[in-house]
């Protein structure tokens, strides 16, 4: 999953303020500059409520920066589009559609004919590991399975960029480890540019090429860590533990600051 050095996503002086000029004005992001390369897997790590999901939604085109420029392939992001796919923490599958119909949603929208949809669907269930659940409704699936369907739905129409908003946050530890392994496999097969929001240091280090550590609100990038460990990564390896120690200390300092802003 090495990148080819081409800039895929660029954020220049991004600032985001909610309810500007009103009583409830909150500055979520103060000033954000970052670059993500094509084919790179980056983790956006930070304390809860720091604005990392907000940033992800801006890349998705659901929200817009108050100030600054956000570029995808050198072009200003003006709204959502099928060059990006998204996976939410709460899966957000359409409950009235079966797993298959959920996965084929984007293909339907793109006007792909049914036989081509079926072929793509077969590839995806092989890749994501969904055999035997094709025609199940989401409510009958476990959390892990639902999230697999959601990942397949996001990949179905072959977007360049995969945006993941704490996708494994609601899963139990065992399922999460399994999903990590499978996501690494998916990434090796597809070479997507991935932005992965998390507040788990281990998760960030297990998955990503680089970790952007967000500061407490209003956020800036506090530091950027290159994860120079070959995959599959051993969470007990010396370098892993060293980076983990460092990131936990750095993150904890920000969590402390967040606590003093909003007592949650």
């Amino acid at each position, binding site marked *: 999953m090495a990148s080819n050095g081409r800039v895929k996503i660029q954020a220049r002086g991004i600032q985001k303020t909610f309810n500007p000029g009103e009583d409830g004005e909150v500055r979520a992001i103060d000033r954000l500059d970052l670059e993500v390369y094509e084919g790179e897997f980056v983790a956006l790590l930070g304390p809860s409520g720091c604005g990392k999901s907000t940033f992800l939604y801006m890349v998705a085109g659901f929200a817009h920066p108050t100030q600054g420029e956000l570029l995808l392939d050198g072009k200003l992001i003006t709204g959502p589009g099928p060059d990006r796919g998204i996976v939410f923490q709460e899966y957000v599958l359409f409950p*009235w559609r079966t797993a298959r119909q959920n996965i084929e949603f984007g293909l339907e929208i793109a006007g792909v004919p049914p036989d081509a949809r079926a072929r793509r669907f077969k590839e995806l269930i092989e890749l994501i590991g969904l055999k035997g659940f094709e025609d199940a409704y989401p409510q009958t699936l476990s959390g892990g399975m639902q999230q697999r369907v959601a990942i397949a739905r996001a990949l179905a129409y072959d977007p360049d960029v995969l945006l993941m908003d704490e996708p494994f946050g609601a899963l139990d530890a065992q399922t999460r480890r399994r999903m990590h392994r499978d996501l690494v496999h998916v990434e090796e097969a597809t070479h997507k540019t991935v932005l992965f929001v998390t507040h788990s240091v281990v998760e960030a280090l297990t998955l990503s090429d680089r970790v952007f550590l967000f500061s407490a609100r209003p956020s800036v990038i506090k530091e950027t860590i290159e994860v120079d460990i070959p995959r599959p990564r051993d969470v007990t390896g010396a370098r892993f533990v060293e980076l983990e120690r460092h990131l936990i200390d750095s993150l904890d300092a920000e969590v402390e600051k967040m606590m003093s802003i909003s007592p949650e």
Partner: protein
Amino acid sequence: MLGDTTQPNEEAISAIRLGRWKLARLRPFVVSVLSLAGFALLWEVFSRSGAVNPLLVPPPSEVFRTIVEQIGPGSGERPSYLMLRHTGATVLLLLAGYFIAAVAATVLGLLMGMNRHLYEWCNPLISFFMPIPTITLVPVAILWFGLGAYTVVFIVIIGSYFPIVYNAAAGVRSTPQKYIWAARITGASKTQIFFKVLLPSTMSYIIAGQKLALGRAWRAVISGEIFASTQYGLGFMIFDARTFLDTETVFAGIVIVGIVGLVLEKIIFRCIERLTVDRWGTATAKTI
């Protein structure tokens, strides 16, 4: 797992369990039948006990005989299949009014859900009109449309309109933002989002509203007929029979109204729900 070590005993036990399970499933039905039969029996005894005038409180057996008689061929002045004609007339007016309301109100409700201004302007009106008992409007409707079918249909429309609007609008408004986002990122157009996301996501609310509306429509059609029908309809039949002190027909009408209402509310909507919201796991809490 057990292979050939299965003991015959276990099969017998599971057969009994299965039997019990089936019985347990039938239980609510059996209890319902017994409850109604018990009530009828008590009434029968009461009616024939001499404590009341059987002319005013006819025994259920006589009411039942009247129903059978009036469903069948005519005799004397009574035309054939009279009960079916009355029931048919009522159901026809009900469906006419209900479908007009269902279409018009669903459209308005969905639009209100999607447009904040429309919602803000229409919601006070709905909040005002919804709790007014439909029967209140019968005198006005008679002045506007005269005696007859138009008045009854109008009353049915008014009776069923508001719960549908209210629920459809609420359904759209409670569609999770992330459903819309998940669709928008695939490049879905507004029309596609409406038909592929908004409408199915609102379905459980729409069904709840329609169900409530049909119940209200049924009440409305009967009350409309009592005052405004001139020849056929269960409401007319009941009111007309009263003039002749024909209490058996009055009660026969009440029983038929109860049965048809039950079929409309319980059976038809149960089937729709099984096919949709039950399968999706999105059924909303029952409204009344």
